[in-house]
């Protein structure tokens, strides 16, 4: 068989695979559908170039196979052709870059009405903190973290007192409401990623990173850690439940705040002291 045929079949197979693949992205469940569109655009332009280049190659292989006595063309340069190709490529590249940059501009500029969510990562798990009635999260320090202060909230920060603490790896979110995910880590790099939301960012110890999205489909989603963080990396999962307005409010009311926790601790202390007194 002529090698050109096999190469042709490889190209054809790639196209068919792309069309009929059962492995493709999950339905987008956030506002980042634009990322999918850019990918599709890149597929059209890039895939077109791939097919064109490879088919041209296959054609050459058929047409100009070695013949004894035939001379190849002698033409060291073709300035005009090279110029055309350079400009065509440049235009293609600009067409890909422009939408990419526009979306990135959206990505780094968080809408004013976004709810901040503090996502705290460690080896290997997640927990979450939502702002309380004041709508603001308190500041934190890694050194403050202990059993009585699982998030390391600065005790002198008034904004921290009413923060809602979710000591579980499942986070509830309100549908159609933008959230600003504030990521931090207490030990190594992590990355909080829900494939359906498309967006992701590393959690870096020592700083706070962020990204935002607006969930737009009610449902349950799985959170994956996608930045390698040690042997437990592959098992570091979490969950997101996107709920309607009312369900979310109900859920939020049942959650414990930092001041609840402090009160509980104090009660415990008092009870302990009372108990000690009784025994004595």
């Amino acid at each position: 068989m002529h090698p050109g045929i096999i190469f042709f079949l490889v190209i054809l197979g790639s196209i068919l695979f792309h069309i009929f693949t059962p492995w493709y992205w999950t339905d987008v469940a956030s506002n980042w559908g634009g990322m999918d569109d850019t990918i599709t655009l890149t597929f059209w332009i890039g895939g077109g170039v791939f097919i064109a280049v490879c088919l041209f190659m296959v054609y050459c292989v058929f047409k100009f196979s070695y013949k004894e006595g035939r001379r190849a063309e002698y033409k060291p340069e073709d300035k005009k052709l090279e110029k055309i190709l350079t400009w065509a490529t440049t235009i293609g590249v600009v067409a890909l870059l422009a939408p990419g940059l526009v979306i990135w501009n959206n990505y780094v500029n968080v809408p004013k009405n976004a709810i901040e969510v503090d996502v705290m990562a460690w080896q290997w798990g997640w927990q979450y903190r939502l702002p309380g009635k004041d709508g603001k999260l308190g500041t934190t320090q890694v050194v403050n973290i202990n059993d009585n202060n699982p998030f390391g909230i600065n005790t002198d920060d008034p904004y921290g007192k009413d923060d809602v603490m979710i000591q579980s790896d499942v986070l509830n979110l309100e549908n159609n409401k933008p959230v600003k995910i504030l990521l931090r880590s207490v030990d190594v790099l992590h990355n909080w990623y829900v494939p359906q939301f498309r967006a992701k960012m590393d959690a870096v110890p020592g700083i706070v990173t962020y990204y935002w999205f607006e969930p737009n489909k009610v449902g349950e989603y799985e959170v994956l850690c996608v930045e390698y963080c040690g042997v437990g990396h592959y098992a570091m999962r979490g969950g997101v439940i996107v709920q309607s307005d009312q369900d979310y409010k109900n859920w939020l009311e049942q959650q414990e705040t930092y001041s609840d926790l402090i009160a509980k601790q104090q009660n415990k202390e008092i009870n302990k002291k009372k108990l000690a007194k009784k025994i004595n």
Partner: protein
Amino acid sequence: MDETKKKEQATTHKIGIYLWIWGLLFVLSFFSYMVDWYNFQGMLRWSLILIFMFLKAGLIMAFFMHLFWERYALVNVLLWPMTAIACFIFLMVAEFEYTVFTRIFYFVTGG
């Protein structure tokens, strides 16, 4: 390289130029030391430090390392890669400003 040698031997530089540069380097070092002595602060300190630094570096490279007399082919090969360093410096300044911003904002002041 024999004929090259003969030529170079004839055109080594006068001792005066070396002594001049030598003297200038001492003076510039003295000046940059004075920046600290008089305790200048802020932009003035920064620009003085950088000016004296680059003047000294330039004098050493140009005259002690003979770059002033080298052909452009060599000089350009040596200097163009510094753009990558310049880019690296520029971006790392933006990076540490961002780092220190998030640290102050999320770990100290808040709000």
